[in-house]
């Protein structure tokens, strides 16, 4: 079942390559749509079977590289299922958004579909080597998306992205090898590692955790490993940015929850403070730097650093000793935040792409009064902005509230400091709204035409879903919470 999930986009990529340029977009939309339906079916199925009990569903386990006891082991649970749905949704939105793409649509569709397989692969992997393979493939795929279809200094930014994340992935690999050698019997199997965590000496445990964390932190990214993010976003095509922010960043945070917490409970607890500090610094630093940006895309990019900081905060809190129920709320908030950030930021990047498409710039100063000129852009952007700043009624609130409430009992100081981030994000988004949508028209305002149907169809559902989660989150949390409890129980009391 899951293998099919992975193979469909791959087959779609080949199909797109074989198809004429004109037909590629149909293939792209059809395949991503099929994939979303697939993800939905998985969700419904998992709700009925084991998905909500905290265990794995749809598991498949085959021998792969017996020499190093690496297995082709895949499966989903409450942590991965929402992200699989998110991935499928974002890619469908990208396919719709790029309906009128004229620049080599065929290869674009193929690469994007390849990237979808890689991303989904990371989320279903239950074997570290498999995880790593998909993790790196996603980097390669993204490199080509940025380098091939980016603008501005795309080649440089793509290279920077590639080198940075590739180096990070190597650190990850070293960490994985450490996990493997520390486990007894040696294994790369995540389920096995979680059940029977490696007994490492304090020093070795710390080093392995350091390697794993650096690898994941680069991808997440957290301060100070975030510097690849703004140029990569600025120069990437809109779809690339949406996928980068919506899906790829999640690979890092997902890794923290999926790998670091269950397999290294001891070192995680020892160094939980580091996670809290990095999380809080990312929250504030990301928000403050975003506040000073004049480029819309860079601004949104930095808010990603801010939002991912909350996730790290929750991971740190989950690793501490304390009330398991509270910590599981924090973990559940972290996962919700991943989904929420994916939806909202994906939508915001696509909207930013609309501005670039029409006016050729992201410069905030060149717009103004768009609410009059392009009300649909303004409405959707405003919804996205408010959702992103954590307004109740959208998914961001549900996520961040859980993180705060769940983390505060174990880490009150960190949470109280991190709360300031809410204020700064509110300031920066309101300021951006004021500069873009309200006030007097800017020099490029006249060039902005309102959303086309395919763009609206791509963006609106993402935001609608965010609002749905914000208003009635049970359909999501029912899946996440059992898995979050499992993770926390693996870490210890």
């Amino acid at each position, binding site marked *: 079942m899951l293998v099919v999930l992975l193979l469909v986009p791959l087959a779609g990529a080949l199909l797109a390559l074989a198809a004429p340029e004109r037909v590629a977009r149909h293939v792209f939309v059809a395949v991503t749509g099929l994939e979303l339906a697939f993800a939905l079916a998985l969700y419904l199925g998992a709700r009925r079977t084991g998905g909500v009990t905290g265990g794995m569903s749809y598991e498949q386990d085959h021998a792969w590289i017996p020499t190093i006891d690496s297995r082709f082991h895949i499966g989903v649970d409450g942590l991965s299922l929402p992200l699989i749905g998110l991935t499928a949704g974002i890619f469908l939105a990208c396919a719709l958004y790029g309906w009128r793409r004229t620049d080599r649509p065929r290869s674009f569709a193929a690469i994007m579909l390849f990237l979808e397989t890689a991303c989904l692969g990371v989320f279903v992997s239950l074997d570290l080597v498999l995880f790593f393979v998909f993790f790196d493939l996603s980097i390669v795929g993204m490199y080509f998306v940025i380098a091939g279809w980016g603008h501005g200094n795309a080649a440089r930014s793509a290279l920077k992205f590639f080198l940075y994340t590739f180096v990070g992935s190597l650190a990850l690999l070293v960490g994985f090898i450490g996990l493997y050698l520390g486990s007894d019997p040696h294994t790369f199997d995540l389920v096995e590692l979680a059940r029977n965590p490696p007994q490492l000496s304090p020093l070795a445990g710390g080093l392995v955790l350091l390697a794993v964390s650096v690898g994941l932190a680069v991808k997440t990214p957290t301060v100070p490993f975030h*510097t690849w993010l703004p140029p990569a976003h600025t120069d990437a095509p809109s779809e690339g940015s949406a996928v980068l922010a919506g899906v790829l960043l999640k690979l890092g945070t997902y890794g923290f929850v999926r790998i670091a917490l269950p397999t290294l409970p001891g070192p995680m607890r020892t160094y939980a403070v580091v996670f809290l500090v990095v999380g809080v610094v990312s929250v504030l630093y990301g928000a403050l730097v975003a506040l*000073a940006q004049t480029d819309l895309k860079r601004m949104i990019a930095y808010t990603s650093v801010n939002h991912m900081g909350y996730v790290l905060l929750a991971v740190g809190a989950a690793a501490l000793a304390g009330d398991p129920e509270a910590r599981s709320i924090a973990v559940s908030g972290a996962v919700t935040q991943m989904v929420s950030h994916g939806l909202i930021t994906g939508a915001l990047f696509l909207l930013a792409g609309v501005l670039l498409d029409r006016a050729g710039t992201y410069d905030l100063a060149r717009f103004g009064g768009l609410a009059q000129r392009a009300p649909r852009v303004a409405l959707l952007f405003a919804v996205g902005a408010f959702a992103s700043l954590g307004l109740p009624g959208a998914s961001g609130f549900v996520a961040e509230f859980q993180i705060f409430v769940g983390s505060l009992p174990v880490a*009150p100081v960190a949470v109280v400091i991190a*709360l300031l981030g809410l204020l*700064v994000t509110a300031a920066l988004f*309101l300021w951006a709204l004021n500069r873009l949508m309200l006030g007097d028209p800017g020099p490029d305002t006249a060039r902005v035409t309102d959303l086309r149907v395919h763009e609206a169809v791509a963006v609106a559902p993402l935001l609608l879903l965010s609002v749905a989660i914000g208003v009635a989150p049970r359909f999501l949390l029912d899946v996440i919470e059992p898995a979050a409890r499992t993770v926390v129980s693996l870490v210890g009391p």
Partner: protein
Amino acid sequence: MTVPFLAGLPLTFTLDRLSGLVLVTVLVVSALVLLASIAEIEQRRRSFYALMALFVAGAVLTVTAGSLLPLLLGWELMGAMSYALIALHGHGSRAPGSGMTAFLTTRAADLGLYAAAGALYAGTGTLDLAALPSLTGWPLHLATVGLIAAALGKAAQLPFSFWLRRAMDGPSSVSALLHSAAMVAMGGYLLLRVEPLLVASGWGSDVVAWVGVSTAVLLGLIAVVQTDLKLLLAASTASQLGFVVLAAGVGSVDGGTVHLVAHAFVKSTLFLAAGAWLTVLGTRDLAELRGAARRTPVLGTLFVVAGLALAGLPPLSLWTTKDAVLVAAEQRSLALYLVGTLAAVLAAAYAARAVAIVLRPTAEQGVRMPLLAWAPLVPLAVVAAVGGLLALPPLADRLLPGTVESPSTIGLAIAGVMALLVAAVVFPRAEQLGRATGLVGNVLRDWLHLEQAVHAVVVHPSLRLSEALAVFDDRVVDGVVRASAPVTQGLARLSRRLDERGVDGLVTAVVVGTQRLAVLARRPQTGQLHTYLAQSAVVLVLAVVLLLVVR
């Protein structure tokens, strides 16, 4: 009533006496204000009514919340809608900034609500408001601080009051609803709700009481010298809510409630009237509104009735409700009572001043008002006039049995007389008050320079910090050296130093070092065979040494 939301943290709703009364008020005022706004709002009605509807939903959520979660939901929703309404439908190019100021200020205070939620959860494992008093230890104090901050922010109490001034850039109907009956009042409502927590904390009540009464006095003073009708009303709102906050501080929950309710009706009448004048006369400047009541007799009458109620003249509503609060204050502390009374005097002064100015004779022609501009005000004014009955024994005993301190007849009489006297003193001198100059006058007219202070202490440094961080970040990314403004030079120098020795320096060093090594690495490959042979011989010797030494 509960709706599942988060794990073990459902949305809980309760409807008790307090929330019931406030809910009715909110709904009635909302309905009437919306009706009246048809006359004012002409552009983009769709978004206006959508936002207003969302706002009302938020207010209802807040009022009926039985736990912090729905409270927070409604609370933040109200704040955001206030931004949207001011920014989108306000007057002038300042409006977006004003909306932002309003939202950011209240949100800064709202962070306390998040902290309080976390603290409550940490202490009790639930978010029920009823569980608040059972907190102990640090969660108790964190929750108290958080809730007080949140409530004071929303209620535009000191030191947050300045946002209400900027909020006056919004449409008058928005002011009538948000900044009198619903949102601002919710700050007071929250404190009334969590009054047991204030008591439990040991210090919360006093803090709240003193903040409330100080606001009542200082904002009263500010109101007295305003030259803009809406600003006068805004300051008076904060001042009047000071009484509500005081009530929460001194434990007079029901007294506070009735004052809240009565004030809502009074103030929405006044705001709507001010808005109507703005629409038909095109001004909100008090000097230009001279005789406005005479030009629009019906509206004028309604304004005067509500204005006199605001002044606390008997037998109008605020006369009795305010007294209910003051009685409770007197039982707590004489100082509180005296300061509160001073505030009452000031209320009489600013209200009388506004009324006096609009009642001055004028040569201007009368203006015809559209029906919708005044009709909805009639019921509001009626309640404003007779709402005081709520605080008097016959009605109070039935609606709120045994909780409202029965105002003593003498006290009521003194208050009534005092208000009348003040009004009488002010009435002829109304214009002079607006021209009050000197340091005190200027400081008061500029709302104690609160906004500038906040800008200087919080906003400006934050922006500078954010710019400096952005420059730092850019340097790390691109090595682009940006010119720094004189102010930021200190920070920039710091960041540059961090930068050169920090991340970028390291990266550069590694790259340069690697390049040097790369050049070095190619040097042995001379192309000369004999050097190849010699080098391999040397390496072999070294290998032998290695084997012999390391064993």
